[in-house]
């Protein structure tokens, strides 16, 4: 592939509530075995991008741990590799990343020292499969300066968190509304861009001189008439997980056979960091229906319409419905959990009761002491 990859994984927002207290959104566990960033990393390796930089800032510990080895995505090669850029103080900058463009500016050396002609920029919070080569072919065919991958969405209530675009019949983007309160557009930017490397360097340097730091507001929006910005429409599954409701819905989507088979069985695969966990164990009273269950769990109770992540213990007579239980959770006997997301490493006492509403999922963080012999 004639491109390098840049993954913007530094962001955080309040819409993830307690879930983002301890990790960047890109490190959110998804669909039992994965972390959100695995999808973009796998897309890049499956598109034969060999050199990938991950830009982190907010609470990167969990993310750094996940990226501690590049072998899971097959990046640890002599040519290329996986680079993680956290903000550092240098002789000419003592700032955090003040925005996406600034993050690129502070790592401009990486862009300058590469020799690949194109750059794929993507975020770490999208759940999708995409061959970036197809987007690049389109980018070249359209003679575009910047190509934005876009998707038509139906759920209007969600529009306020996206950038919306309107396009001509030739797919040239003429209008960009960033996180509008009200809009009559319905095509959103997925935060995936392709741009020529030299042009990107030029635009980023220009923005920095003018003390502008955001890639969308200060580059895309301002240059939309000057440069040829095209939209590449995708029809396949794409979901951005960065609100509690969207995160819950995305995980629950995997109970749908079509979506599950699309990600799990169709080429190409999505890779993740393998934990050496034993198979999941179902004891005598277990009763599990319509669930996605990752490895290393021990189940004694009833679980229905739920997603169980890795290494979860479910006690006797405990009932779990329509919930998501994140990694490494202990749930005692006789507990009842419905419409909840249980934060990872939680310990839920016996006889606990947590009930959320379908339209208002409750986030459970309980760190009771656990005594085991």
């Amino acid at each position, binding site marked *: 592939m004639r491109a390098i990859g840049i993954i913007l994984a530094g962001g955080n927002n309040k819409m993830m509530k307690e879930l983002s207290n301890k990790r960047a959104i890109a490190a959110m566990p998804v669909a039992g075995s994965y972390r959100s960033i695995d999808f973009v990393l796998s897309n890049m390796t499956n598109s034969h991008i060999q050199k990938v930089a991950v830009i982190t800032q907010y609470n990167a510990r969990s993310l750094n741990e996940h990226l501690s080895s590049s072998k899971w995505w097959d990046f640890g090669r002599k040519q290329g590799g996986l680079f993680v850029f956290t903000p550092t103080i240098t002789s000419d900058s003592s700032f955090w990343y003040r925005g996406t463009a600034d993050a690129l500016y502070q790592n401009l050396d990486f862009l300058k020292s590469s020799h690949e002609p194109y750059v794929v920029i993507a975020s770490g919070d999208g759940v999708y499969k995409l061959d970036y080569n197809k987007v690049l072919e389109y980018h070249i065919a359209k003679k575009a300066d910047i190509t934005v991958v876009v998707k038509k969405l139906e759920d209007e209530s969600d529009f306020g968190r996206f950038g919306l675009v309107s396009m001509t019949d030739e797919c040239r983007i003429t209008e960009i509304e960033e996180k509008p309160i009200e809009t009559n557009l319905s095509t959103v930017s997925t935060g995936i861009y392709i741009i020529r490397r030299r042009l990107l360097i030029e635009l980023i340097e220009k923005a920095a001189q003018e003390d502008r730091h955001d890639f969308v507001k200060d580059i895309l929006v301002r240059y939309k008439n000057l440069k040829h910005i095209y939209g590449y429409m995708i029809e396949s599954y794409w979901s951005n997980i960065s609100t509690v409701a969207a995160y819950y819905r995305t995980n629950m989507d995997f109970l749908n056979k079509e979506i599950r088979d699309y990600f799990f069985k169709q080429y190409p695969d999505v890779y993740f960091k393998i934990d050496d966990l034993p198979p999941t164990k179902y004891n005598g009273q277990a009763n599990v229906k319509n669930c996605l269950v990752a*490895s290393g769990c021990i189940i004694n109770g009833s679980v229905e319409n739920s997603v169980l992540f890795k290494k979860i213990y479910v006690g006797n007579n405990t009932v779990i419905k329509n919930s998501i239980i994140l990694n490494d959770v202990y749930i005692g006997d006789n507990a009842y959990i419905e419409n909840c997301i249980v934060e990872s490493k939680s310990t839920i006492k016996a006889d606990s009761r947590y009930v959320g509403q379908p339209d208002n999922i409750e986030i459970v963080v309980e760190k009771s002491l656990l005594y085991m012999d």
Partner: protein
Amino acid sequence: MIKKEMIAMLLAGGQGSRLGVLTAKVAKPAVAFGGKYRIIDFPLSNCINSGVDTVGVLTQYRPLRLNTHIGIGIPWDLDRNVGGVTVLPPYEKSTSSEWYTGTANAIYQNLEYMENYNPEYVLILSGDHISKMDYKIMLNFHKANNADITIASMPVQIEDASRFGLLITDSDNRVTEFEEKPINPSSNMASMGIYIFTWKVLKETLRELRNQTQCDFGMHVIPYCLEHNKRIFAYEYNCYWKDVGTLSSYWEANMELVDIIPVFNLYEEFWKIYTRTDTLPPQFIGENAQIERSIIGEGTEIYGQVYNSVIGTGVIIEENAVVHDSIIMKNCIIGKNTVLYKAIIAEDVVIGEDVEIGIGEETPNVKYPKVYNSGIATIGENSVIPNGVKIGKNSAIFGITEENDYIDGYLQSGGNIIKAGED
């Protein structure tokens, strides 16, 4: 200069013919175990957990799957700059070329490999044991006794003793006599086939015995060393250890994993067992599924019922299929309304709809009564079972079978259908 205190030599070349069709195309150490593992994962994990980071794996019978499984040893952290895992097949020499003719002969043919690491001690292991043994403790025992050879041993039932090599020791655990598979056993301390040799003693002895045909540790090396007054000690091991060399012991060891708190517990944080796995998605449990007392691997989809069973990775169990007391290895498909009782289904088997397996009276196997003798129906890898047939107990099937292979649609207990050849 390279120096390793102890290196391990893992004997993984045997066929293991008592596992019947399970080892028809794969060496015993590569047979699947416990849902996601292969048998060799246990000694390899024990090595790295014991701090032994240099392991030679001696292969001979059908090594392809072992080779691909081991690779460069990444899953066990055995990819090292110095040492790590090395697969050691028999090789051609300028004057004489031979296969590995016995356990000690195999080690003798690899003296050069061991010499490279300049070891103090060499650990000899078998590739067919399920345990979480700490070889470091055994080494400490060896050093404390200033031993030449330490033999790991465990007490067995006196009725079973004649199947083993037996150790007779004095009060200091020093071995005074050794009986290999005696008819009238005079001890119940059985050798587990795990040895630590002081390198110099091993090298000298193997050179002395180089003309011995089919040179074997139990038959030749240990008796020779006893004769020459070497300091041989018995290290008694009392934790979980299982030789899974027969269909019944293989089945039992798997079934023990589904106990509420298994004696051999894979869920402990300490002493993890590592294996090579494909990046497989989580398992999916369907709307009408029922699972009790079972362990189930990644990527498996269950729409039917599973009781008391060990299910591997990437398996599909269709609606209304019922699996009782069975072991199903990876990527199998069990069709709708099919019922299994006490069966072992090897990798990549496709079983049709409305099939019944493991039914009827228990009668001895007509051709291999010593192999298929514990009531288990065994189906070899890549086999296909057509819709609607019935299969009895103590039976074996291997290959792509069709309806007319079954007389009146029923393979009676003790029957065999072996269709797949050597290739």
